[in-house]
């Protein structure tokens, strides 16, 4: 690349823009972490902001490491344990493993179970509601039961005997269905010349 003052200036401007963008997104993240730290928002509020397409913070939050989010109010050992349990329950032992999951990894819409497992890990370790196993669940909370799905009944298929062509030979006149249109009838016209446009 030819070093000219103009190029230098351009590069400088681009770098400055990138740095500003980076700093701004870092600021967004730190704001959110601080908000979680003082109790103004939960981890799930942060995830909801990241998942919000209209939010300007979303791209920056999406790139954040999950370790950074979970480290609020926890020792590094506790975070390690959380992450290893999350990995054990969401990743197959022989499948793809992610060493440092990000917020985007948790929120991947093709894997909703990751969010549920995270909620399970962050839930309180004591009873789901006071008074278990004798008290009913508090009003307003729904307890759903596992519906035992019966395997769909497979209709018994009697071994179909393929009709022999000799059964209807010769075909009685007037009963033959009109022949289905063959794909060969609508072949593209290869005789006309086509030009490729780039």
């Amino acid at each position: 690349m030819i070093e000219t003052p103009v190029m230098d200036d351009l590069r400088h401007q681009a770098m400055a823009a990138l740095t500003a963008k980076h700093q701004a997104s870092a600021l967004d993240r730190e704001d959110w972490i601080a908000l979680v730290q003082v109790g103004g928002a939960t981890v799930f509020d942060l995830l909801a902001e990241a998942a919000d397409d209209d939010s300007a913070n979303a791209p920056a939050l999406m790139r954040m490491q999950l370790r950074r989010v979970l480290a609020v109010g926890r020792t590094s050992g506790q975070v390690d344990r959380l992450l290893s349990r999350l990995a054990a329950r969401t990743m197959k032992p022989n499948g793809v493993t992610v060493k440092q999951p990000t917020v985007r990894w948790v929120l991947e819409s093709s894997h909703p179970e990751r969010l549920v497992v995270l909620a399970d890990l962050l839930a309180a370790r004591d009873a789901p509601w006071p008074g278990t196993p004798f008290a009913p669940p508090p009003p307003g909370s729904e307890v759903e039961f596992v519906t035992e799905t019966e395997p769909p009944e497979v209709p018994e298929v009697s071994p179909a005997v393929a009709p022999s062509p000799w059964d209807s030979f010769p075909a009685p006149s007037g009963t033959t269905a009109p022949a289905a249109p063959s794909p060969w009838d609508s072949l593209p016209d290869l005789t006309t010349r086509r030009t490729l446009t780039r």
Partner: protein
Amino acid sequence: MTIVPFTSVTNRCPAPELRVEHRVDPFHDGLWRGTNTLWHEARLAERRVESGVAQRMRRIDAAYAPAEARRAFTDLGRSNRQLRAEALQALGLIASWRTISFELLLTFSAGEVRERSSWHRAGHGGLGAGVSSGLFDRGELHLSELGADIPNLYRPGTSTHRDWSVDACSMAERFKVTGGCHLTRGTQGADLHNMLAVEGSSRAAELCPEVVAVAGEGVCSVDNLYPDKPVDARMKRVSPDAVWLRSDGLRICVEVTSNGSTQSFRAKVERWVERLMETDSLDAGATVVLFVDISAASSNTSYQVQQHVIAKVLEESAWAHGRRVPLRMATVRWRSWFPTPGMVDEGFLSLLVERPTGPTDSYGEATWEPVRLLDLEAVPFRPSDPESYGWATKLLGQLHQTPFWLRDSQPKIDWDRWVAQQIKPANLRARVGLTPLSKAIPAPVPPASPVVVVEEVEDPWA
């Protein structure tokens, strides 16, 4: 009273080889006189081996190194799924019932826990792994005779590993093990006492058709029985030895007692009277406290002392009769239900007990009347909210500690769904397939603003 063999009573346990007639009888078979159980604790055994005063034995306890056994829990069963499932099942049973024999572990879990298997090292079962890691202790009865075929006993261990392993569980696994209670070790003084509590509960679950669930000491502390009533610190530690649930939701708290003349028995009765007096509200009669006397003497002395102490405490507390406490206290002797080995009195099938509700005798003490606790007419229970009392059956039906024939008939709660319900932000709820909260709970409609009718006044200036 007619006394019939166990085999001639309808038994609800579907597996014939696990039924009561095939188990060792802890009361009649002469197993206990004082403490003759030798307990193997992994922590102490390891220390003995390290210091050189003992050698490691090639037994089921040595099947796993402690670190290896711990890993079975903490890596969430990636290494051995079967082992982990077995150990959690055993942990749920042992933590709830305090001291339980291997036979009863088999009965309650439908034979899902294994103690030993000769053909494969991994087949030593969840009990071996639990003992090696210090989750439970294993006890052997020491007898003077040889060749006694007595099942091992198990009790919760002292290791803090229990808390870690429960902490590593998912919500669904954890609730099955703990029932939402904090697992404590409790008092482990009397093995016979604990064994009779669990054996009696097993017999009630097998033979009494009106009993729909049984719960062990670990999951029925008093603050769980009365969640909406504040419990003072003294009462908080109190927990009946077992709770048997009647089909309409009446809770029969069973206290197994061997000596009525001690101060601790009197204190226990006083605490229960106090608690029953506080809870006499609309749902009076939610709880019946049943003292089962297990003294082995053939004379009635100990039992009569117990009845005397209970009557005395009731007499001394001023409002007990006004609050119908005597209707909710009962006593019975173990020997009157199970008089001889292998036999059961038909009174046990409907829980024939005695209540201090009779007319006072010449000493001014109430006489004791027989009543059948499982008779819905004789001991009525009409709660203001029957549905909320039905939940106990459903929730106990989720737990590992419940006998399998009572557990399998209950629908299973979808705990993953419950956890997902706790996620509040709307866009995250949509991701896990839930309706947003604002739609689920319709916003209250604001009252219609009063229509102000403006009278048209003719403009005089027009």
